[in-house]
C-alpha cells in the first residue's frame, strides 16, 4: 500500500505532499511496532483471572503483585537474567569479533585457499540449523559440555551469516588503501585490524551485535536441550517453565511479567547500540 503512493507521487508531487505521506506511513509503522509492547505491558498489569477474560486496552492494578510473585516464586528469574546476560553478551561479542576477523582475512589478504574458504563458508550458511541441532546436542554430550553455559557461548564464534554481512560491508566501506596506509606507517597486522579496521566497521559491528544478542537472548531451543541445572537456566527456559506450571501455580500474570522483565534489558541494550547506527558515527573515516 505505501509503495503505490510512493511510485505515483515520485515525479509530480511536491516536497510537502511527500513529507505528509512519509509521516503517515512512519506513524502507522510506529504504531504497528509499538502496539505489542503496549499490550505486553497491559497484560503484565493484569491478574490471571483478568487475562482469562481476553483482551483489553486499559491497564489493571496487579503489576506489583505479579512482579512480587515472580521474584519470590519458584523460578530463579534473577539468576535467569544474569545467565541470559552472560550468554547473550559473550556470544554477541565473540561472534561479531571473530566473524569480523574472518571477513577481514578474506577481504584484505590474498592466499591460496581464499576462494575455496569463502565459498565453503557461504555453503555452510545454507545448511538448515534444525537437523544439525540434534547432532549438535549429541556432540555436546560426547565432549562433556552438557549443562554448561560454554556450550551456548563458544559455538557462536562461527556465525557464517555474520561473517558474510561483515564481508559485504567491507566491500563497500573498507578500502584496501586504508590497510596499505597503516602498513606504511609501520602498524603490525594485528594492530591494523584491532585499532584501524575495527573502528571503521563500528556501524556493522553494532548491527550484528544487536542481532546476535537478541537471537541468543530469545533462544529457547538449544538451551532447553543443554541446560539442566536450575541455576544455569536462561530466561526463555524459565518462561517456558512458568507456562507449563501445574494448575495450582499456573498464572498468566506471572508469565507476562516475566516476558516484560525479559524484554526490558534487550530494549536497553538495543537502545545503547542503536545510537551507533542511527547517529552514523563512523561515516567520516571512510572518506579517502
Amino acid at each position: 500500500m505505501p509503495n503505490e503512493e510512493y511510485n505515483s507521487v515520485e515525479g509530480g508531487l511536491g516536497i510537502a505532499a511527500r513529507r505528509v505521506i512519509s509521516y503517515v506511513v512512519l506513524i502507522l509503522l510506529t504504531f504497528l511496532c509499538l502496539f505489542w509492547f503496549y499490550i505486553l505491558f497491559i497484560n503484565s498489569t493484569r491478574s490471571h483471572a483478568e487475562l482469562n477474560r481476553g483482551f483489553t486496552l486499559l491497564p489493571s492494578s496487579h503489576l506489583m503483585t505479579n512482579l512480587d510473585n515472580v521474584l519470590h516464586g519458584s523460578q530463579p528469574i534473577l539468576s535467569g537474567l544474569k545467565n541470559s546476560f552472560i550468554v547473550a553478551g559473550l556470544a554477541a561479542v565473540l561472534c561479531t569479533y571473530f566473524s569480523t576477523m574472518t571477513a577481514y582475512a578474506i577481504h584484505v589478504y590474498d592466499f591460496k585457499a581464499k576462494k575455496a574458504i569463502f565459498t565453503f563458508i557461504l555453503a555452510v550458511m545454507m545448511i538448515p540449523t534444525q537437523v544439525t541441532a540434534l547432532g549438535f546436542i549429541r556432540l555436546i554430550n560426547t565432549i562433556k559440555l552438557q549443562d554448561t553455559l560454554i556450550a551456548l557461548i563458544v559455538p557462536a564464534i562461527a556465525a557464517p551469516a555474520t561473517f558474510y554481512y561483515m564481508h559485504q560491508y567491507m566491500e563497500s566501506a573498507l578500502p584496501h588503501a586504508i590497510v596499505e596506509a597503516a602498513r606504511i606507517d609501520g602498524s603490525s597486522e594485528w594492530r591494523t585490524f584491532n585499532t584501524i579496521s575495527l573502528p571503521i566497521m563500528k556501524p556493522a559491528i553494532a548491527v550484528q551485535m544487536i542481532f546476535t544478542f537478541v537471537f541468543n537472548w530469545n533462544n529457547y531451543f538449544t538451551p532447553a536441550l543443554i541446560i539442566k541445572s536450575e541455576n544455569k537456566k536462561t530466561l526463555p527456559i524459565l518462561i517456558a517453565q512458568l507456562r507449563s506450571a501445574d494448575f495450582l501455580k499456573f498464572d498468566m500474570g506471572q508469565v507476562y511479567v516475566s516476558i516484560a522483565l525479559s524484554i526490558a534489558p534487550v530494549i536497553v541494550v538495543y537502545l545503547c547500540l542503536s545510537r551507533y547506527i542511527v547517529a552514523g558515527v563512523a561515516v567520516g573515516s571512510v572518506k579517502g
Partner: protein
Amino acid sequence: MAKEKKKTSKVVRYNKWGYIFLIPFITIYLIFNMIPLITTIYNSFFENYRQGIIQVGPNWVGLENYITIFSNGDIPKYFSNTIIMWIFGFIPQIFLSLLLAAWFADTRLRIKASGFFKTVIYMPNLIMASAFAMLFFTLFSDSGPINSLLMQIGLISEPYKFLSHTISARGLVCFMNCLMWFGNTTILLMAGMLGIDSALFEAAQVDGATSTQVFFKITLPLLKPILIYVMITSLIGGLQMFDVPQILTNGEGNPVRTTMTMIMYLNKHLYSKNYGLGGAMSVFLFIVTGILSLIVFKFTTKKED
C-alpha cells in the same frame, strides 16, 4: 612477534595473517557445525529412528529415504507453501525497507525525529516469537478484539476463524514475518548507506539531481553488496522458515497443512528422532538452497561486470 613481521614487510608475509585470522572461526566451525553436519548426511542413508524409547537401526538403506520423501508427494507441497509465504512476506518487507531507507537518506525530505523512527522499526524483533504468537492468538481468536471490531463495523456477521482459512492463515504468517523482520532489513540497508561516502550525495545535490535520481543512481548501486546479502540471507531464512508458522499453527500447518513449511515438516520427523528421513530432507534442502542462492548470486553479480 609483530615486530618481526614489520621488518620483512613483503606481501606474502602479510598474507600468512589471512590464515591466522581464520583459525578461530574455522576451528569452532569444524567442531560444532561440521561434525553434526557430517553425521546428518551420513544418517540420511540409514534407517534410524526411535520407537518410543527403543532405538531402531541404524540399518543401511541406501537411497530409500530419498525415494520416500520424493515419492509421497509431500516435498512439492511444502516447498510451494514455503516459497509462497516467503515471497509474500519478503516483497512488502524489502519494499518497506528500501522506501524507509530512501526516506531517511533523503536530505530534502528532512524527516524530523528520524532517530526515533529508525529506532522503533526494529523493536518487534526484540519480542520472543512465542510471546508474539501468544498476543496474536489473543487478538485473532473468535472472541478476540479483531473479530469484535469487524463485527461492530458490520463487515462480518459472525466471527471469522483467521487460522482456519488458508488465505488468512498464510496472511498472518506473512504479516508477522514482515513485521518482525522489516526493521532488521532496514537497519542492514541503513548501515550499508552509512558506508557510502557522503561527498557523493553532496556532489549529486550540487549537480541538481532529484531525490529519485540520487536513490536509483547512487544509493542503490552502492548498496548492492548489502542488497545481495539481504536477498540471499532472506532467501535462505525464507526456505528455513519455521518458528512463526510453527507456533501460530501449533506445528500443524493448519488448515490442512497449507502453512506447513519444509522445516516444519522436517521437525515432524525429529519427534521420532528419525535421523534417516530427517537427514535426507535436510540434504535436499541444502541442495535446493545452494542452487537458488547460486542463481541469485550469479544473477546479481553478473550485471556489475
